């Protein structure tokens, strides 16, 4: 018998039926891993029995760079982390350093910051919606989302000249006065945006296939979500009503009324609904904010050279993806001693393995999409 066998048959074969395990390498070059995420999937047929995220393909050592730049010089770098929500990144960093300096941006600057940040949240969610729908196979929402996102980027461009990596804010306030048409532009966008959200919802919310693909997929219970450190829409969809904008208000959020949408089951559909509602709420915040932008200076009194007194501060904001924290340590010099960035995408991605177990390959794509990760931020 043995002489008949040329190759050893004793080795465990990897087949769909036999050994029940097939390793599928998804990414780093794959249409729906949103950049360079690489996921090693252990499959039984098409069912996932284990996964491992291999990240770092986009690591640029942002935290190390921070130690060799002055406080102001580092500000543009944070835009490159979550590059679809650069304004939010900038806000977090500027506020963290302001806290370290113990200064506060003037009210006018804070309101304008709020407006731009909320617009950025809408833009980020729009990009998420488009790509998420595309992952699940709906081609068209992507283009509708980009159409609206374009309007937001135009407002950014008018304000500071850049569209993607805006570097809109400065430590201590703003560099640029709001352009004349800012209120009008924002208002026009908000007015037009309401029916557009309805369009997206018409395409997806009640769609049987969409429901089938998202309901019950990637369930993350509240306790698990907290234990895994998930924040932002991912946490809220699990039913935890926590939003830093309400819990520890920053910028000018304490002045505006808005709701925190929460989900019930924590599945992909809930995350979708939460983000859709968040866009509506952001729109309302923008509308409230442009009603009354206080006059006054846009820059607090900070010196040309920033030398925060020694000490440390942790400041976090509610970025579109979740809690974006900056832990900045000063040693009294012009350069930060250490800047630690708490990236929401990185931490949220950790719950991927938990969510994906027992699902099919097609759901893996949906779950990557629903986590709304940006690899620039995961890898930093």
């Amino acid at each position, binding site marked *: *018998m043995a002489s008949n066998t040329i190759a050893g048959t004793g080795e465990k074969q990897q087949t769909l039926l036999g050994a029940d395990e097939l390793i599928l390498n998804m990414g780093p070059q794959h249409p729906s891993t949103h950049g360079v995420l690489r996921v090693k999937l252990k499959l039984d047929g098409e069912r996932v029995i284990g996964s491992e995220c291999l990240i770092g393909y986009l690591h640029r050592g942002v935290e190390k760079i921070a130690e060799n730049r002055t406080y102001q010089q580092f500000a543009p770098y944070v835009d490159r982390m979550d590059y679809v929500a650069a304004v939010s990144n900038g806000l977090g960093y500027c506020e963290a350093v302001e806290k370290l300096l113990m200064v506060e941006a003037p009210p006018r600057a804070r309101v304008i910051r709020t407006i731009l940040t909320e617009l950025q949240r809408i833009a980020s969610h729009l990009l998420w919606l488009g790509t998420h729908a595309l992952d699940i196979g709906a081609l068209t929402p992507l283009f509708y989302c980009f159409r609206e996102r374009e309007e937001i980027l135009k407002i950014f461009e008018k304000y500071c000249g850049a569209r993607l990596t805006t570097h809109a804010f400065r430590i201590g306030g703003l560099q640029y006065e709001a352009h004349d048409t800012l209120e009008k532009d924002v208002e026009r966008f908000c007015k037009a945006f309401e029916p557009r959200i309805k369009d997206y919802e018409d395409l997806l919310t009640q769609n049987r296939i969409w429901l089938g693909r998202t309901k019950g997929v990637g369930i993350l219970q509240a306790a698990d979500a907290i234990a895994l450190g998930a924040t932002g829409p991912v946490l809220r969809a699990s039913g935890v009503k926590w939003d830093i904008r309400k819990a520890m208000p920053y910028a000018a959020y304490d002045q505006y009324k808005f709701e925190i949408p929460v989900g019930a089951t924590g599945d992909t559909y809930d995350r979708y609904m939460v983000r859709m509602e968040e866009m509506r709420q952001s729109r309302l915040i923008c509308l409230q904010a442009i009603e009354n932008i206080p006059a006054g200076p846009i820059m607090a009194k900070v010196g040309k050279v920033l030398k925060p007194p020694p000490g440390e501060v942790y400041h976090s904001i509610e970025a579109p993806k979740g809690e974006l924290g900056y832990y900045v340590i000063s040693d009294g010099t012009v350069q930060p001693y250490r800047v630690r960035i708490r990236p929401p995408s990185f931490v949220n991605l950790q719950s991927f393995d938990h969510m994906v177990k027992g699902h099919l390959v097609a759901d893996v794509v949906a779950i990557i999409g629903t986590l709304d990760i940006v690899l620039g931020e995961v890898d930093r």
Partner: protein
Amino acid sequence: MLPIGHYLFLGLALFIIGAIGVVTRRNVIVILMSIELILNAVNINLVAFSRLYGDVAGQVFALFIIADAAAEAAVGLGIIIAFFRNRETVLEDEMDLLKW
């Protein structure tokens, strides 16, 4: 049509090739395929005679044989899959257990 002998010889050739496949190959899947060849050879004969006599009965029987082949393939492949799952082989001479 050509004289019936042509078809009979063709049927014979396919039958024998199939038979050789059945008795010499080790891979059970290939053996099953060889059996399909044999069934086909029979079909050729049936259809040829049906044409010769202008009677469709032969074709009807050929139809039954095709249905039979489908049943045989389904069950045979089912057995192969079940066997492969347990023993991780598709070689007939390694199928030496009556029960597992």
